[in-house]
């Protein structure tokens, strides 16, 4: 054992000396630097060997760092990274999950182009995103500004605004369905008895043309509290001096908002819009619970992309086709996020 060690040490020392010679003779600075780094590594190994340490200090440092990451990363790699890679491949295959896999190239995507249910889902999802993102952003910003003022019971108001976000969807959609019940709900009862809207003209909140509007309104109601908190955090980062300076210059409330609050909140707004967009594209349970029938079935007027992914995968077991829809969802989210990043970059220049 000891002999082996001395031999190894000797080998390292000769290597180091050899390198030292090379370094002296080297004229190119870049190459010289590389050689120096190489020699340092060997020296470190030698030191570790002399001090009877099995692994060098550097390696030990790396190992400690990895030991912190490992518990999360292993789970993350197995249950997230691998399936993601798998998802890309699946879109080009035909598979029912049990029998043989067949490679079909872009056939799945070609089939999508004249699938009317898919096109309806795509359209509805886009309508939902376009409606929900700006409305939620404006509502949450307004609410955050109001709740950033010095008002009494501010904490209570903030807490209450967060209730809809915390509440489970199944429970809260059940209430909405009752309140907006087409024939018995209090909203339509009000329209019928007080506003004298005739029976056949009472709005059908969960079907036909109105359903997307109901979904959007519900989402704004449910999620504005969440984005309000993010805006509140952003507002607290704006220094009070800016407003004082604005006040001295005679700026009114609107001008203060336009020239101080809004520009100062740019990165917050960017974050809110990016997160909102990603989250809106994921819409599924809201649609199923508000507009779905007893068995959760959605009609073309309220279907969304994720619903169709689920149906194709777990009802008819067309895994490849389902993954092709998932890819459309992914590309949409990716492209829009990239455009948003590009736009933010342009603004900050």
């Amino acid at each position, binding site marked *: 054992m000891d002999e082996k060690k001395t031999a190894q040490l000797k080998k390292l020392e000769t290597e180091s000396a050899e390198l030292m010679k090379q370094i002296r003779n080297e004229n190119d600075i870049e190459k010289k630097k590389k050689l120096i780094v190489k020699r340092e590594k060997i020296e470190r190994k030698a030191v570790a060997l002399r001090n009877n340490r099995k692994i060098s200090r550097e390696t030990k*440092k790396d190992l400690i*760092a*990895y030991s*912190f*990451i490992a*518990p*999360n*990363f292993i789970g*993350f*790699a197995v*249950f*997230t990274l691998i*399936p*993601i890679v*798998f*998802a890309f491949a*699946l879109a080009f295959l035909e598979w029912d*999950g049990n029998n043989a896999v067949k490679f079909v190239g872009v056939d799945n995507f070609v089939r999508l182009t004249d699938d009317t249910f898919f096109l309806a889902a795509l359209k509805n999802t886009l309508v939902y995103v376009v409606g929900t993102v700006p409305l939620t952003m404006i509502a949450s910003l307004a609410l955050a500004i*109001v709740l950033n*003022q010095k*008002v009494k019971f501010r904490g209570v*108001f*903030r807490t209450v*605004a*967060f*209730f809809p976000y915390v*509440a*489970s*969807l*199944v*429970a*809260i959609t*059940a*209430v*909405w369905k*009752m309140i907006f*019940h087409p024939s018995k709900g*209090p909203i339509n*009862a009000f329209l019928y*008895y007080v506003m004298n809207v005739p029976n056949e003209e009472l709005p059908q909140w969960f079907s036909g043309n109105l359903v997307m509007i109901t979904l959007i309104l519900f989402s704004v*109601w449910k999620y504005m*509290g969440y984005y309000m*908190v*993010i*805006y509140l*955090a952003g507002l607290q980062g704006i220094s009070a001096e800016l407003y004082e300076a604005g006040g001295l210059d005679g700026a009114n409330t609107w001008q203060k908002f336009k020239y101080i609050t809004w520009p100062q909140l740019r990165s*917050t707004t960017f*974050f809110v819009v*990016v997160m909102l967009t990603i989250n809106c594209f*994921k819409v599924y*349970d809201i649609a199923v619970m508000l507009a779905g029938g007893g068995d959760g079935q959605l009609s073309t007027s309220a279907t969304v992309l*994720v619903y169709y*992914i*689920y149906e194709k*995968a777990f009802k008819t077991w067309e895994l490849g086709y*389902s*993954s092709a829809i998932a890819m459309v*969802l*992914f590309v949409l*989210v990716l492209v829009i996020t990239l455009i948003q990043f590009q736009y933010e970059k342009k603004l900050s220049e």
Partner: protein
Amino acid sequence: MNNKEKKFRSQKRNALIGKICIYAILIIITALFLVPFLWMLSASFKTDREVFAIPMQWIPDNPRWENYVEIWTKIPLLTFVKNTVILTIVVTLLQLLTSSFAAYSFSKLQFKHKNLLFLAYIATIAMPWQVYMVPQFIMMRSMGLNDKLLAMICLQAFSAFGVFMMKQFYDGIPSELCEAARIDGMSEYKIYAKIMLPLSKPSLSTLTIFTFVNTWNDYLGPLIYLRSEEKKTIQLGLKMFIGQYSSEYGLIMAGSVLSLIPVIIMFLCLQKYFVEGVAATGLKG
């Protein structure tokens, strides 16, 4: 002099009008947020016919407490609650522990391939889970995890979001603190446990709220994985009940109220750290 006083008075009046407007807006908004919850609570004490009776009674004359008893026998609610509680607690604990652990390394230690590893986390935040839920399910099934709570735990406990959030927070804690401890001979594990963890109350509370709420309320995940009735979570159970007894309005509302209680309690306990946590974790961007 007189002019100045006039101006002062009108300013004061404007301020007062502004205040009144703000409170009026606040009260209207709060009502919009609260009314569905109050309606739910009120309906949960009514018979099915009373729920939609006109004029509406906010507090029914003879409240039907039986709704809260009956709901436990109509569906195996206790099993659902038990499953959800186990799932939520395990996921939240794992999430807090592994995320803060990994985040410490990403924020305060130097090591090989650090940027590459962190990029893997960041890249998946923008990736909707729905994009890869199908291959994930196939994989879990081949591992024999179909219809097991363990599948849901594996799925939800290792999110990229948690690591990202905790790292943002740790980046805000000066590195000198760790350096000093290192010079004193503390090991990295000790620095994490004795210095970083006690400082991360706001961000841990925020992450707890997010994880707890998401796991407790998740619907699509359990819908895919938990097929048999004794494995179902409270969301699935409640949805099933609504599907079967769609006109038992009072009971549906009682079940809904029950499903909300744990999350609301959790939120009320931790909410004082909440805004601070969101601000400190740089979630604002």
